[in-house]
């Protein structure tokens, strides 16, 4: 199987190189990359079958030794178990769909080949990340997806907003990576290995030094330090508060990558990582509590921001932030399986929503403001139906996929609160619960503003409105199918079966997902219908209908009446302003101070003062010398040559 794994990884890399470096035609560029990622997808299915269906043992092998230093072997290798197999299928499928879609979306773009090269390269990096069997390679993939994200957000590099957004994204991610790298260092110090299997084995057996000294005199639990540092990395990549600020701005990139990277795959890397590290996180309740609080803040407060955005992509972006918060809450509740389950369903329906938004944007001639849309459903029936499916799935109406994953998370948090107690879990529970109402409200607000109601676009745009071509609608349909179905078919094994045995570890007494309470899909749906989340979602839908279809003049009135609250939301809690002022501005200020005062005034001032003094002194004795440094220089060099040459030659 090793060759299959290698092929999965290398095919997109080769595709990216051919498309990017050899000046090939458009047709070659998209054929090669689509072929390569298609191959990866098919082979991922083979792997899935091999590991999950046929039940073969996980593959855990080293490919080559990266380096050996200080007795530590740093290796590149693959770990393929059920968790990896699931990620492979999701990533390769979404990526493949996005590749097709790009043909339509980037049709007129001069950077066509470059774009295909980048998204193929991204697919390679993401595979490396999910297939890694050690922390080093995880970091490789981690940074590599960040790099491609940077390149793609800044794809239209002549736009100031794009190159502002990509720099911001990279730097905010680097803040997370800073923690992540230290976390890896803490792992190495504690376990003297970076290999997953070895580290997890030692962690479970308890054979490690349990404390780390941070401030002299106080000892911290090693596991808490490790997990929180690693999670800081996840906060960057998965855009958790307060490192969430880069994700909305990343919408400056072309829509296909918003779907692929900033919704379905890369941003979920943090979730994947924490689930992979579950044997470590399970050992630190403190870290789990930290995780659940951060997740809850993100889930609730970022959802609110989706209510006031006018740009269709930004609504979806804030929705993504909020949903990532849901996944993080699941992780913090020890319901890793539920987090991964939501990751998967979300990958399908959120990619669908983004691509749907992109389809609208194509039809609207790259207009993204929903205030200039409306009534699109009769011009674009396929886009409308698929977007509707995505919306229903996102809001969590049964039996669409999002229902299962979201309900599972809410239930799990509820159980976690019963098990662990504490205000943190209670806060998380109410955050995700009320979040359901907000989700339904912003989702249907978007749907109604875009596809229903009055047609608010200008005459010229209206005349040209038509459904997008099949390369665009095809992927929409292909993604709509799993958005509906994937939940009901996979919830049993993923959440309550043995699917993740051996790849995700939960301490039995922590486990908030109780298999005994699960009585099949229909039972789960029946239970869901009498629970609060369903009715909250319905209320959100109803509110959206009332505000944006029935009484479309009301939202403006509400916005005006709520004054400062509305202002806070529009200003995104002032996070961007604060960061620009405090961090970006502060760093530049410190930079010019250290330079102008430290280097120029103090150090050089002293040196030049000294030089002046010496200059005065030497003016006294200057008569003794010729003053031409050339003379000295050449005298010295000739002397040297003769001297050394003489030794070698004469002897």
């Amino acid at each position, binding site marked *: 199987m090793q060759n299959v794994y290698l092929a999965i990884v290398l095919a997109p890399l080769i595709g990216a190189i051919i498309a990017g470096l050899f000046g090939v035609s458009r047709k070659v560029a998209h054929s090669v990359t689509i072929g390569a990622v298609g191959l990866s997808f098919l082979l991922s299915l083979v792997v899935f079958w091999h590991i999950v269906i046929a039940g073969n043992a996980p593959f855990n092998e080293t490919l080559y*030794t990266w380096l050996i230093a200080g007795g*530590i072997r740093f290796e590149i290798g693959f770990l393929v178990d059920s968790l990896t197999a699931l990620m492979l299928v999701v990533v390769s499928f979404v990526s493949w769909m996005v590749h097709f879609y790009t043909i339509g979306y980037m049709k007129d773009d001069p950077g066509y080949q470059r774009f295909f090269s980048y998204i193929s390269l991204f697919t390679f990096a993401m595979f490396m990340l999910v297939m890694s069997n050690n922390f080093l390679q995880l970091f490789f993939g981690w940074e590599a997806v960040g790099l491609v994200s940077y390149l793609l957000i800044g794809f239209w590099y002549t736009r100031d907003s794009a190159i502002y957004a990509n720099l911001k994204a990279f730097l905010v991610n680097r803040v997370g990576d*800073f923690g992540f790298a230290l976390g890896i260092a803490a792992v190495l110090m504690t376990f003297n290995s970076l290999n997953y299997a070895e580290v997890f084995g030692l962690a479970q057996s308890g054979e490690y030094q349990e404390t780390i000294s941070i401030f002299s005199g106080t000892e911290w639990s090693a596991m808490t330090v490790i997990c929180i540092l690693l999670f800081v990395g996840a906060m960057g990549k998965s855009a958790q508060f307060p490192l969430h600020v880069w994700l909305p701005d990343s919408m400056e990139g072309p829509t296909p990558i918003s779907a692929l990277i900033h919704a379905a795959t890369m941003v979920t890397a943090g979730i994947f990582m924490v689930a992979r590290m579950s044997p470590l996180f399970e050992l630190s309740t403190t870290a789990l509590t930290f995780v659940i609080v951060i997740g809850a803040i993100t889930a609730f407060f970022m959802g609110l921001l989706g209510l006031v955005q006018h740009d269709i992509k930004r609504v979806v972006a804030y929705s993504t932030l909020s949903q990532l918060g849901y996944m993080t809450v699941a992780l913090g509740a020890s319901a890793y399986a539920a987090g991964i389950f939501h990751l998967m369903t979300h990958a399908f329906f959120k990619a669908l929503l983004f691509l749907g938004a992109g389809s609208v944007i194509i039809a609207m001639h790259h207009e993204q403001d929903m205030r200039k849309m409306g009534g699109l459903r009769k011009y674009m029936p396929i886009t409308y139906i698929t977007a509707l499916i995505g919306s229903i799935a996102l809001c969590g109406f049964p039996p669409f996929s999002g229902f299962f994953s979201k309900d599972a998370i809410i239930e799990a948090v509820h159980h976690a609160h019963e098990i662990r107690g504490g205000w943190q879990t209670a806060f998380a529970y109410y955050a995700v619960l009320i979040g359901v109402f907000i989700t339904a409200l912003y989702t249907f607000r978007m749907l109604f503003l875009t596809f229903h109601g009055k047609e608010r676009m200008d005459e010229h745009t209206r005349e040209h409105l038509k459904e997008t071509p099949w390369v665009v609608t095809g992927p929409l349909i292909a993604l709509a199918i799993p958005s509906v179905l994937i939940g009901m078919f996979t919830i049993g094994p993923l959440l309550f079966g043995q699917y993740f045995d051996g790849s995700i570890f939960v301490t039995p007494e922590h486990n908030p997902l109780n298999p005994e309470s699960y009585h099949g899909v229909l039972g789960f749906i029946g239970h869901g219908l009498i629970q609060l989340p369903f009715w909250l979602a319905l209320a959100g839908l109803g509110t959206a209908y009332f505000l944006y279809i029935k009484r479309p003049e009301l939202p403006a009135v509400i916005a005006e009446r709520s004054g400062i609250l509305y202002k806070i939301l529009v200003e995104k809690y002032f996070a961007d302003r604060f960061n620009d002022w405090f961090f970006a501005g502060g760093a530049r200020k410190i930079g*010019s101070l250290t330079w102008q005062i430290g280097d120029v005034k103090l150090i*050089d001032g002293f040196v030049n003062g000294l030089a002046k003094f010496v200059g005065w002194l030497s003016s006294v004795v200057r008569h003794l010398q010729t003053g031409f440094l050339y003379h000295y220089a050449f005298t010295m*060099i000739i002397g040297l040559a003769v001297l*050394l040459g003489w030794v070698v030659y004469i002897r």
Partner: protein
Amino acid sequence: MADLPLLSILIWLPILGGIWVLIVGDKQASAVRPIALIVSLVTFLLSLPLFFGFDTTTANMQFTEQLAWIPAFGINYHLGVDGISMPLILLTTFTTILVILAGWEVIQDKPAQYMAAFLIMEGLMNGVFSALDAILFYVYWEAMLIPMFLIIGIWGGPRRVYAAIKFFLYTFFGSVLMLIALLYLYFQANSFAILDLHTQSLALESQKWIFLAFLVAFAVKVPMWPVHTWLPDAHVEAPTGGSVILAAIMLKMGGYGFLRFSLPITPDASRELDWFIIALSLIAIVYISFVALAQKDMKKLIAYSSIAHMGFATLGFFIGFMIYNNTGSIDGGVMAMEGGIVQMISHGFISGALFLCVGVLYDRLHSRQIADYGGVANTMPRFAMFAMLFAMANAGLPATSGFVGEFLVILAAFKANFWIAAAAASIMILGAAYTLWMVKRVIYGAVTNEGVAKLKDINGRETLILTVLAIVVLLFGVWPAPLLEVMDATVQNLLQHIIQSKIPLM
């Protein structure tokens, strides 16, 4: 091959080649360049057996040569390499080819002397890295300043005289103290052989004085804060080739000095004063990174970036004592020191590449100011791709060589102290900030002025140079194992050596 005095050839072939080029002279400029190129190529090829014939299992000196030079004082012409110096020699022979290619069409003023200066300097630098006699080392060390002084002084920018003299005085001042220390050691050990000095026992008090004398010499070269201000001036005024050699190799001399002299000769003083070096290294990483952020001149920015990155080398060299105290094992120290050495090699490639990139732009618009550019990617897409790669390597992206050393040093430093590791790791944020902000202002954006609009993309020669560097940067990022393998035995041995006290028992 085994019988050839390879190291002598690597020293004298380029020097003689340089003299030959001088004799051919500027009148036959068209002949001078190919001669210089061939000499540098042959030198490089002849340096390869050092790598492939290297015995990685031993820390002993290899390819040794010894002739009496001034027998009255026991001064020998004694050469040899170990796992620390050998990679640096290869870095020198490799970089020289690129520098000669880089000056191909650009240098029209006295091309013969230009090429000769670089060839002679190559030989002298190889001498520094292979000398095993302290006086021989000192002679090469000083002699090497002369061609560099001339390169800055003759082919430099408008303030070249100020920069050249500042460069010369700083480094000269440092090395005088080194000479005094070496003479003192001679009277103790009655030998100038560096390996004898390694085993010479010394009282702590004298170790400290020697350590400080060495420190001044090497800290200036690295350069470490606060004796670094000559470097930005030297870089700004130096022609592209001069900057490349300065950044890629000359700075490494300081790091090499710590490994060859300070640590093994004065291990007890090093242990006593390690906090001081660590503090200076962290200041270099954090403070200098902020200074880099404020720069408006591309070359100055890269120069400051060099200082910050070299902070990792010195940090890696001296953190081993703390790790040994905490863990009772030299493993962490080995990892840190190897990380520091890898950082030096990698920085040679990356900073060299970045200076070449600035050179490419400077050759076209005759400006180094960031504000004079903007939107270069529109007119020079191929160049933009390379610049992006090297910028990312400078920001320490994994799978580039820039990541390897930094990562190893951070991993090891964590075993010494959390806050040291955290301060060092801040380069992940700050390094990305100053490098990519420059990329944003220079490469990205809409075309800002007519100059940029008229830019021509890189030609074949420039593409060749940058491609070679790109391959090396990626290769050592993806597979650094061979590099670490050659240095491992030497570094293990050095760490073993320095944790033993050399203070004589009363």
